[in-house]
């Protein structure tokens, strides 16, 4: 009953100033629309760029870095203990990039409940031979099935069928850049030289396009067995173990744990891609800042219209008070006006924001670097909508609060005397 009465007074005041009320609401709508559109667009962009790296990256990678032995022979000699040693004669060995005991490690990891999947890898340094010239590159030996399952390998094989890599012996999927340089078609035989000087012929079964041009100019893929054959190593030879975990946040912790348990190097995705994290968070920050600025501007619009309304409706406020409306009733009338503008404008803003996002989602965005992307990406995270509506309500409430407070304090005697 009481709310209804307050509401009828509020709405009649708004109707009396319909134009200004609408302008104030449009301000909020505009602010919210931009807020939603901007955040959805930036969110989509972030996902796209992050996906480019993180979707294709292991959460934890185990590897052995070529590094010198920590204990040089001179350190072991008791008579030189306590002296400063600068003789380091023992250089790192080539075999150090192999992960020892890889089979055991993989079996242990498979039983670990925190791990969602593993994929072994071998990196082979090679020279691609084109006629009389060679150029350096690398071939990743992969477990085709695991790689497809964990890192969407198939998405990036733009020509040819990825599974042929597993089914055809001595086959290779060339990086798009490599293939262009070598003028290699599907089905062609190409020749590579391994670092040990052996020449091997491989059959091209597809092209690979990661979206990172530099990478595609040097990197190709082969099955793990092919890679082992290239190196002349046994079937237990592995240089990397790529791990996907269930909880991404746990990755740094697990990396540390595995490094000490398996006595290998381990790097987590957060450390490996710190620069991408920074980029994403800065972009998000900018979107929030712009959106919030727009809302604050809209808040000033509401503040203005309410002040004007109060000035114009001084007489009405006086008579309401004279006939028994209390200061808080009057305050509620104006706060309700502000909130109505905020909520209506805000909801419309959400709707428009959603529409704009959907339109952007349809805009074609074709680039050779991103073979899997056809249109601009949009992230319709409900979080954005919740933040937007809460923010519009809070801003409009604050914008309405001060004028409303002023109205509640108006002294009817002064107004009536002034006549």
């Amino acid at each position, binding site marked *: *009953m*009481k709310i209804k*009465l307050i509401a009828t*007074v509020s709405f*009649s*005041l708004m*109707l*009396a100033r319909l134009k200004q009320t609408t302008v104030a609401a449009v301000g909020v709508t505009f602010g919210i629309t931009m807020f939603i559109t901007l955040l959805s667009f930036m969110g989509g962009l972030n996902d796209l760029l992050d996906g480019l790296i993180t979707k294709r990256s292991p959460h934890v990678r185990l590897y052995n870095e070529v590094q010198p032995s920590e204990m040089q022979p001179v350190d072991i000699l008791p008579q030189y203990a306590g002296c400063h040693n600068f003789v380091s004669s023992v250089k790192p060995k080539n075999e150090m990039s192999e992960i020892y005991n890889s089979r055991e490690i993989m079996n242990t990891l498979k039983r670990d409940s925190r791990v969602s999947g593993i994929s072994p890898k071998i990196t082979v340094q090679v020279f691609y031979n084109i006629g009389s010239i060679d150029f350096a590159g690398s071939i990743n030996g992969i477990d085709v099935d695991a790689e497809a399952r964990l890192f969407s390998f198939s998405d990036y094989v733009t020509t040819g069928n990825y599974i042929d890599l597993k089914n055809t012996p001595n086959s290779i999927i060339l990086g798009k850049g490599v293939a262009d340089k070598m003028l290699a078609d599907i089905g062609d035989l190409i020749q590579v030289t391994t670092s040990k000087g052996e020449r091997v012929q491989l059959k091209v079964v597809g092209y690979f396009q990661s979206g990172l041009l530099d990478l595609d100019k040097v990197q190709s893929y082969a099955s793990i067995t092919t890679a082992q054959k290239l190196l002349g190593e046994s079937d237990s030879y592995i240089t990397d173990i790529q791990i996907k975990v269930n909880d991404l946040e746990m990755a740094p912790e697990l990396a540390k744990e595995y490094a000490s348990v398996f006595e290998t190097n381990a790097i987590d995705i957060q450390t490996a891609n710190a620069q991408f994290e920074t980029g994403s968070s800065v972009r998000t920050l900018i979107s929030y800042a712009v959106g919030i600025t727009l809302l604050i501007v809209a808040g000033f619009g509401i503040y203005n219209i309410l002040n004007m309304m109060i000035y114009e409706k001084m*007489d*009405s406020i*006086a*008579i*309401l*008070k*004279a*006939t*028994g*409306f*209390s*200061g*808080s*009733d009057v305050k509620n009338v104006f706060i309700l006006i502000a909130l109505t503008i905020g909520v209506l404008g805000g909801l419309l803003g959400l709707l428009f924001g959603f529409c704009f996002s959907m339109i952007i989602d349809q805009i074609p965005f074709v680039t050779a670097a991103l073979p899997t992307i056809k249109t601009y990406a949009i992230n319709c995270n409900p979080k954005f909508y919740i933040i937007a509506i809460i923010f519009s309500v809070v801003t409009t409430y604050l914008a309405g609060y001060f004028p409303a407070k002023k109205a509640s304090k108006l002294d*009817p*005697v002064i107004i*009536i*005397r002034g*006549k």
Partner: protein
Amino acid sequence: MSELVLEARNVNKYFHDPVTNQVLKDVNLTIEKGVFATVMGKSGCGKSTLLYILSTMDTEYEGELFIDGVNMRNRTEKELARVRNEKIGFVFQFHYLLNEFSVIRNVMLPGLKLEKYSEKEVEHKAYEKLKLLGIESEALKKPNHLSGGQKQRVAIARALINDPLIIMGDEPTGNLDKKNSEVVYEIFNELAERYNQSLLIVTHDPEFANRTHRIIEMVDGAITNIVKMK
């Protein structure tokens, strides 16, 4: 002796702007049920000031004010608003109708605020009041489409909606022509005679005042004489 509706004891009022100036000087006043009283005095003698204090809108005064036997000292703003809503009907020189609302809605507003009757009942009562004042045919119009006399009658209907203990008027006929002033007098007189309504009306019109129960004469913020006519 009939029951007291309103009593003011030793009311003093000062304004401090620009210099301290005593506007009301030891005002003592009682209004009983059914009394139709008028306040007369020169312009600037403090009539309006007295009325604002008696209607609880002005709380900065010295002395005591009793409405319906209850002391109005140390009441919260909300409680005073409630007293005005329930017990006092105020008619100003200017009508103060809200142009956004129809006539009937204007009359209903204080009734809806009271929350004693349902909206339907308040509407019914508002019609009754408009009928009493002979303007029920204007009920659905907007106030700005009415004549000055009609507007003032709507304002009176609004003052009556909660069946107040007392009606106060600050020169309610001040803006009206002779004919309309007469209509307003007739209405007030009928309310007093027929419905035993108490009224306290400020007026400059001796013809108006001479036909009421009591004339309270003020000079320079003090009551100098109270003439009982009947």
